[in-house]
């Protein structure tokens, strides 16, 4: 069986709340990064608040609705990012959020590698029928990365994100189980 937690460039880990909070406090000060993650007005919060938040999240446990991973590089074992899957058990759909917080690792394939692990986990471990995500039109790097991982663009909601004095579109993407199985025939060995 495949190692679900090891890709070509990165591996998936669980981190202590202390470690996670320490690095998050550093990532959140990069407003460009934060504006890629979601459409809400960006904010900074204390390391203490974050540590409590990660602790609480860990106590709530892993699944059945939320699955969270940290991402480390294979080369230097450096903590560079995270992803999370939120699962709708009734309709068998998972939503992904992903972020490489260490910006010197953008555009080097690490996020795409993590996304491939994420899809394999969603389709072969959680066994969902569909994986979905959203992004903003000012993030072409993410769009390209998700296309490489096999997602299809399913539409755009016009002007629903306002940043830097302009209206931007949200892009909606999805990949179906059958599409993923076609892409990654080796995954089912």
């Amino acid at each position, binding site marked *: 069986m495949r190692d679900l937690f090891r890709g070509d460039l990165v591996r998936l880990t669980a981190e202590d709340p202390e470690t996670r909070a320490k690095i998050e406090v550093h990532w959140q000060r990069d407003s460009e990064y934060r504006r890629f993650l979601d459409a809400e007005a960006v904010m900074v919060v204390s390391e203490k608040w974050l540590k409590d938040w990660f602790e609480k999240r860990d106590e709530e446990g892993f699944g059945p609705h939320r699955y969270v991973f940290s991402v480390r590089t294979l080369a230097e074992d450096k903590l560079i990012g995270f992803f999370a899957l939120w699962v709708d058990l009734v309709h068998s759909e998972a939503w992904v959020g992903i972020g490489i917080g260490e910006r010197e690792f953008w555009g080097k394939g690490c996020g795409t590698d993590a996304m491939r692990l994420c899809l394999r986990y969603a389709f072969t471990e959680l066994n969902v029928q569909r994986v979905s995500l959203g992004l903003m039109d000012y993030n072409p790097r993410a769009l390209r990365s998700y296309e490489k991982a096999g997602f299809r663009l399913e539409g755009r*909601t016009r002007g629903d994100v306002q940043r830097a004095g302009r*209206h931007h579109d949200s892009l909606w993407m*999805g990949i179906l189980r059958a599409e993923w199985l076609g892409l990654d025939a080796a995954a089912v060995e």
Partner: protein
Amino acid sequence: MFDIQTQLFEGRDIRFGPIDYEKDPQIESKWTHDSDFMRLYGIDPARPMSPAMVKKKYEKLEKEIEESKNIFYFTIRAREDDRLIGKAVVSRIEWSNGNGWIELGIGSADDRRKGYGTQALQLLLRFAFVELNLYRVTARVQEYNEAAIALLKKFGFTEEVRRRQALERDSRRWDLLVFGLLKDEWAKQAQA
């Protein structure tokens, strides 16, 4: 075009009002026992609720409205007897982006196809655009919900997203559609 005297809550045959804790739970409880309605209104598993459960739900909702400040909830009432016929909601408002999600439901099959939904959507859109000052509104519809799709199209909504096979009902998968209407588009047709 709309001045300060315009009564935002008054339509021709219907009006928007608050929840009535005495009378409404009985009626809404009845709606929840109609699985057809529940499957048109939402995507959560349909579930019957007793009047007491509905009352609890209202209490929770009003608390959430107070705390979150991003939900606006109206009951739709027939003008002739103030009877509850449906609900109209703007929720998940993102103030910094000027976007909100709308929901509309006419509860009993007897009250459908009488133009109440059209009148309610008219009030709801006017409220969203000239009172909440939103830039756009968004609506989610299951592909099998033909009445809702026709209603949204009548008001000039555009199908923006088709989330393929995102929903499972009756052992098959269905698309979930996202429709959007911008304030400019609304203003043009509201004037006409």
